[in-house]
């Protein structure tokens, strides 16, 4: 069996609030194997957003051991973290976060701008991804011309364009109605079925139900 995508051992994260240290994560142990579809559930203030930021290498832990895609995250500098995010992690955000002035196709291509190891035919690959989510007719549209569900599908294509090991979705259906939410979760499920490791962070049990593994986080501690 291949090495796990993500290994977290005794991870803590503290923030300075005023002159106090606020410990948000209090020793998280978590391993995510390749091909898993995992949901991380927690209420607001449980530390799930902080965990998501760490897992996405947008922030680094205060202490512990953290291996992502075979790299020791604790040892990486800012540029190396950027490279790691670019090549190994795809993000899907609650509010889609597309660039308003760029077209659908250009939005999908944004991560390729920053890729060190160049890949050929990125446009063809972007078109292919958009076709998989049924947006091949919308490539020249601006995000504002799309519905919320369509925007989120564009965001998923953007997350997948560099073929990352891990797709990280933070409340991906938080701004969508239940029917559209179902569509998006189906897209994520299909993505997982094609072999992609997917982690969804949510507070919604219905959404978490799509995952094959559910992890609860409460007061900075993991409970499976």
């Amino acid at each position, binding site marked *: 069996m291949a090495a796990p995508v993500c290994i977290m051992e005794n991870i803590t994260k503290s923030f300075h609030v005023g002159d106090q240290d606020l410990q948000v994560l209090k020793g998280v142990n978590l391993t995510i194997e390749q091909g898993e579809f995992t949901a991380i559930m927690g209420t607001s203030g449980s530390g799930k957003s902080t965990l998501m930021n760490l897992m996405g290498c947008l922030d680094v832990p205060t202490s512990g051991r953290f291996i992502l895609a075979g790299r020791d995250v604790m040892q990486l500098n800012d540029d190396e973290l950027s490279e790691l995010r670019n090549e190994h992690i795809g993000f899907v955000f609650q509010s889609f976060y597309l*660039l308003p002035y760029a077209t659908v196709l250009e939005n999908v291509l944004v991560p390729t701008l920053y890729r060190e190891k160049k890949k050929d035919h990125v446009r063809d690959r972007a078109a292919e991804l958009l076709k998989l989510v049924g947006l091949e007719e919308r490539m020249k549209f601006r995000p504002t011309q799309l519905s919320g569900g369509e925007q989120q599908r564009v965001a998923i294509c953007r997350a997948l364009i560099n073929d990352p090991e891990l797709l990280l979705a933070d409340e991906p259906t938080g701004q969508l109605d239940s029917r559209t939410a179902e569509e998006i979760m189906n897209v994520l499920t299909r993505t997982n079925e094609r072999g992609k490791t997917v982690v969804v962070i949510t507070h919604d049990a219905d959404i978490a139900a799509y995952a094959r593994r559910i992890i609860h986080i409460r007061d900075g501690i993991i409970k499976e």
Partner: protein
Amino acid sequence: MERFSLLLIQSYEAVKAFKLRTLFCLVSVALGIAAITIIVAATEGAYKKAFDIVASFGPDSVMVMSGSDEARAIGQREKTITLSDVEAVRQAFPTAYIVVPTTWAGSVIVSYRGNRYQTQIVGSSSDYSRAWTWPVAEGSDFTDEDIRRYANVGIIGQEVARELFGDQSPVGKFIQVRNLPVQIVGVLTERGTSPGGGSLDNRIIMPYTTVMKKLQNESRYVVGMRLRFTDLENIDGRVEELKTLLRYVHRIPDRQPDDFRIFTSKDIVKFLVALTGSLVVFIGIVGVISLIVAGFVLANLFLLSVKERVKEIGIRRAVGARKKDILMQFLTEAVMITTAGGVVGFILGVVSAQLLTYVAEFPVYFSWKAFAIGLVLSWVVGVGFGLHPARQAANLVPIEAIRT
């Protein structure tokens, strides 16, 4: 390559999307570049004109004029150069292949069959055309024989010719110069305006002997003389020797100033540079100030833009943009706008320079140099003033940028 073109396309999209920012930056850069363009064109124009003048005056030429350096209008200075001075100079300088006495009478009314025109009469020896590198277009120069005989002959400038004769050929015809009937033997080519702005084509050249005796009742003094030397490399030394000689024959005591003035082509260039210089300095200051203002406008608008686009920066960082990628993006946007501003400014500069020449006979000349300097300066502004906001953008913390 694809990555670079994608960066350009995305920057272009941003430049298009933030229209107001683009417009203000572009206009302010354009104004500065327009002013700079005019300066470069004016400087080049002045040099080109100076070069033309030196070429027509002749780099080997020296002009000696009567009268001391004190400020008096040309033609009203006292005459101090005599025909014997001219002869002495001719004897003393074997390398002076042309020594031509010159005198003139200004504001003379000439007429031909009822057409009257006010012009100036230049008295010269038979080498006028050669002395001034000023070819005769039609007919010929007068001869040494004409000088000796006090002949009533003349060569006519294009402007007088047009005024008196219209489309007819003046050669062989007689005109009245005051009460003197003068036969036109040649027509000079068109020369245009002098660096001072007067027309050079409004003149009639006659033998100096005729002018002195019949128009001025003068036997000794001329206005000046013109020399040309074969040894161009020694011209500075020759000018000094000429000065010494004239001071000696005029018996000027040591601490007294010269009672004559000597001009070389260098002096003419100096005169022209002084003429355009003050305007160039003025526009130069305006140009530099407006470029600096443009830079601050750009820096401020970009700082605002960075604040507006924090989320975009966060997304880009999340999907793998390094700090330097963000830096490059904002710099690219800035340089794109200032480049456009540079191009617009160049066009603006060309148009206003045309107006300037129309109003003030100001020599301007546009070459790739004016364009290149404008373009480089617009890049300097783009990078110089775009750097601070771009750094701010690059140093945003990704999670905070996304959470805002």
